[in-house]
């Protein structure tokens, strides 16, 4: 069923009785060409692009809970491609280009809103670094725009430009960045994959792998064994736990990241704004709530909830750049479990087990990567060679000395 204005009109005139569930609830078959473990944004996007771009439709997506119940529904919904390093930036730019055409492509309203992202800068050294990053973005075909403090004063008068400790000296815009309705991304990809024949199997937890002579032949699940020619892990947050059942140890630590939303306010923030001297990023949802976040809690956690010192730290970051939000009341806060990799960059790679593929390590940048991750993972699974823009996102890059360390922090996951 295609969605269109005409369809809404027709359904409206006939009592809205024609709407149907947008994906089936099939029983698992005994065997598939490809099994994708994890029905989050990345897993569903992978299934969608496998079916649509590579014609591989005998695919199952196995999800432990319900689709979209993990981090695709727990993030701060920001999309952007403002990275520095050549191992990252072309990938994120591909992802942003896919976001731009996504709603037409899968015929679903994901509320992609290119309302801009602004990284504030607070020192001369930071200005140099940001302009360098802007130039790196140009090299990958992305857009970037340097703004002086005077330009920002005209556009965003509520910022605390003359803050005694962290005065705002300018900023780097990416006007094509913005926000997306995150749940709709999972639903749109699920609908698009399902309509092409992909089986989305919910409440089906993978408990082990059938590995015979170094080749992965299928998985054990809470709903029985399922055979497959290829098995693709896509369970960021739980990557180490799932990979351990295949005997693998990963360059990943799981950490908790908190996010927050205030009560609904009148429109005040035109786009996404980030603090350059601490860690704070904020946007305003279409319902009016300020959606914001900051640093990790900093210790290994699978608990999906954080502690109060980080709440205070994030709130202080917000007050440092925009004191006008000081009277806004916090409505909700929540935590998500992040696959923190050893250099802050993700993995899309084959494993040492034939027929077993790995996608994870997204740190807290996984949401914006959803279309690009699905696109490149589907390419890897279908063709058994990495997509050119994801060719450096390998599991063995530490052994080879080719880390992709945007922040230059080294192998300390809680600092990325």
């Amino acid at each position: 069923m295609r969605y269109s204005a005409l369809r809404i009109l027709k359904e409206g005139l006939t009592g809205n009785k024609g709407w149907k569930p947008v994906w089936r609830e099939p029983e698992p078959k005994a065997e598939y060409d490809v099994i994708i473990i994890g029905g989050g944004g990345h897993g569903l996007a992978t299934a969608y692009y496998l079916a649509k771009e590579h014609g591989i439709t005998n695919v199952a997506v196995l999800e432990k809970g319900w689709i979209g119940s993990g981090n695709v529904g727990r993030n701060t919904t920001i999309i952007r491609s403002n990275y520095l390093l050549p191992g990252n930036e072309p990938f994120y730019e591909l992802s942003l280009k896919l976001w731009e055409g996504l709603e037409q492509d899968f015929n679903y309203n994901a509320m992609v809103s290119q309302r801009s992202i602004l990284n504030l800068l607070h020192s001369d050294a930071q200005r140099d670094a940001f302009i360098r990053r802007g130039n790196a973005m140009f090299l990958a075909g992305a857009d970037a725009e340097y703004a002086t403090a005077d330009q920002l004063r005209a556009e965003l008068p509520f910022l605390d430009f003359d803050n005694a400790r962290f005065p705002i000296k300018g900023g780097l815009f990416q006007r094509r960045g913005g926000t997306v309705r995150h749940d709709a991304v999972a639903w749109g990809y699920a609908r698009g994959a399902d309509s092409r024949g992909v089986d989305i199997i919910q409440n089906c937890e993978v408990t082990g792998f059938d590995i015979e002579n170094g080749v992965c032949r299928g998985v054990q699940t809470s709903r029985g064994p399922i055979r497959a020619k290829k098995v693709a892990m896509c369970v960021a947050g739980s990557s180490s736990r799932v990979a351990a059942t295949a005997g693998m140890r990963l360059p990943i630590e799981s950490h908790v990241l908190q996010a927050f939303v205030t009560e609904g306010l009148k429109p005040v923030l035109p786009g996404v704004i980030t603090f350059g001297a601490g860690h704070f990023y904020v946007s305003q949802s279409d319902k009016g709530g300020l959606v914001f976040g900051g640093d990790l809690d900093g210790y290994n956690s699978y608990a999906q909830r954080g502690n109060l010192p980080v709440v205070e730290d994030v709130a202080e970051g917000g007050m440092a750049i925009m004191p006008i939000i000081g009277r806004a009341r916090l409505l909700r806060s929540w935590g998500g479990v992040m696959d923190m990799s050893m250099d802050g960059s993700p993995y899309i790679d084959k494993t040492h087990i034939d027929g077993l593929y790995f996608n994870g390590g997204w740190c807290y940048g996984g949401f914006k990567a959803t279309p690009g991750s699905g696109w490149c993972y589907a390419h890897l699974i279908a063709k058994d060679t990495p997509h050119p823009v994801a060719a450096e996102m390998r599991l063995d890059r530490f052994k080879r000395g080719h880390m992709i360390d945007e922040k230059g922090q080294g192998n300390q996951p809680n600092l990325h």
Partner: protein
Amino acid sequence: MIIDHPLLGPRDAAEFIYLGDACLIDRPDWQAEDAADAYHDYGYIRDNIAGPMQELWYHEQGDRSWLVVTRDTLTHEITAVELARDVARARGRSK
């Protein structure tokens, strides 16, 4: 979270810096045949345990001691706190 410091008593976890898995105490032998692989695993590969885990915390805003804290990563419950010095010596380090 409250970390019950063996010398100073209960302290707010915000006074500490978190390093990670306490396996980092066990630095590999740099002269061994497999030193390159062992250091790769030591530096980059983690068990990433879901459940009770031994980890290293540094009391930066206090007495600057290193602690081995046994904490459940599913619930954040802390069940044991030891001086890292004692743990390392018990494992045969720095005798």
